[in-house]
């Protein structure tokens, strides 16, 4: 593979675990790549002469007399415009049958952006989905995950967000994707005729889990190339980050580290932050926006993975099936976009913030009324009206199949307000109510 003359080849492994091998060797750099028995590996621990390597594709079948060759470099990716439209594996090798990429070699996992060199995100990314645009607007340079149960259509929603958003490049980092989902993404992108702006790094469930650890860095190295060198706006899709975190815990477990909450490594927060914080708006106009998926088990957001993610990302989006209307909606209570304040009422109409809050508050009243109804209590006239309102709000705005512009979303909201409530019940600032109230 990358063998060069005069390079020392080692042939004796002293320890082998399911994910790591250890050998005696000298002059080895930390995080350096190596080839162990034909498989890629990376240095994760050096103790005197004992070097521990993490073997990405697993150690099955590796003998103690395996050949080990150190490559003298960290993991790298070749970057150039040729990346566009292509599919790669976790090592950055093409898997679509196309030719090798020519380009500049870059180390992956580059240093962080100096915070004073960042620009405050300020560009609205419209998706047409009111549950997002109206209640949880996305902004370029933001990082936000979908918190979803495995049975929810998160990959579909993410694909349609990606295709509707006006960005120059879309980079998919697929970790532990089922082959079906991989083909789904491939089809959707191809059918949309947008393939030339899409780059995919994919690790499917057929591949070994530890390989996934390379996917986010590969995707983000490509993203930084387009955002920094080409000043493009790049949208990075990472799915599924829960499987990435699981791979982290496998490695830390094999290295005998003491687990913290939920058997996750103590460094989980820093490990996730290193990835998500690559989301950035550069002053030069380039940007990296990250939309990720974190699958939950049974909707539990207190588990270490979603919990740490929530503290890092700028909000989260929840999908929920609304049985009243029989559709999947973006849950207005639990979803949040922290950066929305930077654009709503500024890039959108002035009444946006107040309308958004009032609409959600009334929706909350409806959910109280529903609890009352379920407990067998009589409903007041107000309760009845909130319930009617909630159904219409869910149907016309929250459902993920809605695709309208923000102005229309606001107009629909005012329609709903005046149909079901009085001005005092809506409780929006008088100046705004007078201007937009529909009689």
């Amino acid at each position, binding site marked *: 593979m990358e063998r060069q003359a005069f390079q020392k080849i080692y042939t004796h492994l002293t320890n082998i675990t399911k994910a790591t091998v250890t050998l005696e060797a000298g002059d080895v750099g*930390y995080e350096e790549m190596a080839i162990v028995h034909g498989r890629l590996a990376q240095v994760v621990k050096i103790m*005197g002469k004992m070097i521990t390597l993490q073997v990405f594709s697993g150690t099955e079948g590796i003998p103690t007399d395996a050949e080990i060759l150190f490559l003298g470099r*960290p993991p790298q990716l070749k970057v150039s415009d040729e990346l566009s439209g292509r599919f790669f594996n976790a090592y950055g090798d093409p898997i679509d049958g196309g030719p090798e990429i020519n380009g500049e070699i870059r180390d992956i996992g580059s240093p962080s952006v100096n*915070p004073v060199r960042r620009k405050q995100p300020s560009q609205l990314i419209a998706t047409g989905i009111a549950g997002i645009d109206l209640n949880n607007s996305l902004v370029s340079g933001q990082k936000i995950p979908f918190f979803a149960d495995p049975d929810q259509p998160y990959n579909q929603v993410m694909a349609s967000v990606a295709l509707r958003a006006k960005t120059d490049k879309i980079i998919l980092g697929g970790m532990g994707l089922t082959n079906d989902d991989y083909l789904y993404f491939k089809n959707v992108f191809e059918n949309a005729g947008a393939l030339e702006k899409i780059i995919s790094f994919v690790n499917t469930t057929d591949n070994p889990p530890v390989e996934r650890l390379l996917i986010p860095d590969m995707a983000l190295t490509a993203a930084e190339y387009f955002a920094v060198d080409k000043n493009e706006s790049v949208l990075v899709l990472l799915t599924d980050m829960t499987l990435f975190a699981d791979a982290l815990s496998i490695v830390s477990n094999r290295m005998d580290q003491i687990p913290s909450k939920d058997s996750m490594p103590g460094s989980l927060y*820093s490990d996730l932050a290193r990835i998500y914080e690559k989301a950035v708006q550069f002053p030069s106009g380039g940007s990296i926006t990250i939309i990720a998926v974190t699958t939950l088990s049974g909707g539990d957001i207190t588990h270490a993975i979603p919990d740490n993610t929530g503290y890092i990302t700028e909000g989260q989006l929840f999908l929920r099936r609304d049985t009243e209307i029989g559709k999947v909606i973006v849950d207005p*209570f639990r979803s949040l976009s922290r950066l929305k304040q930077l654009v709503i009422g500024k890039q959108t109409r002035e009444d946006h913030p107040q309308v958004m809050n009032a609409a959600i508050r009334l929706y909350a009243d409806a959910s109280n009324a529903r609890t*009352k109804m379920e407990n067998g*209590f*009589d409903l*007041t006239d107000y309760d009845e009206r909130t319930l009617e309102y909630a159904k219409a709000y869910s149907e016309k705005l929250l459902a993920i199949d809605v695709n309208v512009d923000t102005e229309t979303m606001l107009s629909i909201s005012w329609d709903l307000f005046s149909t079901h409530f009085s001005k005092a019940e809506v409780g929006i600032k008088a100046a705004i109510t007078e201007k937009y109230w529909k009689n």
Partner: protein
Amino acid sequence: MERKNKTTGKVVGIVANLVIVETNGPVAQNEICFIHLGQENLMAEVIKIVGIKAYVQVFESTRGLKVGTSVTFEGHLLEVTLGPGILSKNYDGLQNDLDKMKGVFLTRGEYTDPLERDSLWNFSPIAKVGDTVYAGSWLGEVMENSIPHKIMVPFKLEKKYTVRSIVQAGTYTVDTTIATIKDDEGNEIAISMVQKWPVKMPIKAYDNKPRPFKLLETGVRCIDTLNPITEGGTGFIPGPFGTGKTVLQHAISKQAEADIVIIAACGERANEVVEIFTEFPELEDPRTGRKLIERTIIIANTSNMPVAAREASVYTAMTLAEYYRSMGLKILLMADSTSRWAQALREMSNRLEELPGPDAFPMDLSAVISNFYARAGFVYLPNGTTGSITFIGTVSPAGGNLKEPVTESTRKAARCFYGLSQARADSKRYPAIDAIESYSKYLEYPEVQTYLEKNLGKEWLGQVLQAKDILLRGKEAMEQINILGDDSVPLVFHDKYWKSELIDFIILQQDAFDKIDASCPMNRQQYMLTSVLKVANTEFKFDGFEEIGGFFKSIINIYKQMNYSEFQSEKFTQYESELNTLVSNKQVNE
């Protein structure tokens, strides 16, 4: 710890940012060393010593580091540089000036000077030749933005000294000798405007530290009115993600009545720091009319920056605060978030293979947190003036569980607790401080009570406690209503519930994004509470529970418009009279 010959060593082991160094001489716990990797010098701190092996935590990425790399020990602990020119700077956790760094990305091994060596400062002397001085005594001052920055006898000088000479008023660079002092043995020491201090040691150049007694106004009703914090007080804000910790912290740092605000963004989101970078140069300080950035120092060690420097960042921030406190200033120090700092400790303890405490945190977590909070406080300086550091830290409890180790340990150390509630955040009741669960121990201090009585009147404390009672009774009433149903409880339950909702909507809730409502001065807070309590103490006559809800909703709506209007403006009074009419129509006449 100064040594004639620097101790050196060689790298023998590497696990992430923990490096093991074999040394050839004496080393001290927490000593700083540099690992010479090619052209780059990586800074590290000794955290454990076993025989001749020093375990060091590296403040940078260790990628490419090899066994055998040489290391030099510096003979001092992690220090900050103190002098004029710190205000409005953006530092990283090790006090590197971020603006001086080249390039978009942070370069490993790049360290920048925290001060401007070429700037001239207008110095005027305070001390005279012959004066007796100690560490922290004021020798002179320069104007730093609008703050009188005192040039002090370095804190490291522990003896009694006599001033031998001092320069005349004039402009000087920070490195100019501005005074010479002499100890009893006749040793002369030249003093410049710059000194260094190790961050993990508290600066104790004060006479005594009494219990805090003065209210520190933050403009946030939920804090000032119900659970006030004092000058020199400590508080913490725990809350699950998405409950508005950061918005609340930013609001406090914008509005609080402090001379200097230091923000330690410790392991949090970079975009939040960028928000401060962007907004503070634009925003006006309501008290001085100058830009907020002029009185602000930002320590940014965001979550993707090296984890060991994250731990250092809170200490750096605290040391800068202590430096300015010694000048007789009021400092507000905010750290967001102390959980990330605790996690940095955990990552290290884990790599050192120490036996873990609860949730794999180190066993001494509680002591570390208490020691840190203890560095805040109100002090009397030797010259009779006062200074204070008010410290508010946020805590990000794992899974929103307030029983986790960081929250529990902080609860023992901090005197104010501002618990953010998920339920309140879900129903968009911001700031989401749970007024019933939260507390301020300061309300129980007799000296604080005296202060409140003097400044806000005899009735104030009683009013505050009454508001709290109404909130609690309202909550109980609501629980009963939820169990028994609207029409199965007496009307008085609805009355109680809605009166608590009135306080909730008008006093507790505050729109941080509205120009007027965002900051509420104390006199306005007092006016509003008095007004709301008057309604809450009024007996009304209602025919049914639906009427009660309707009535209070319209009252709340008018009150909200008042909150959105300029205090005592025409509009404000107009709403007020509208309100009075509404109230008197429903009132039971005696």
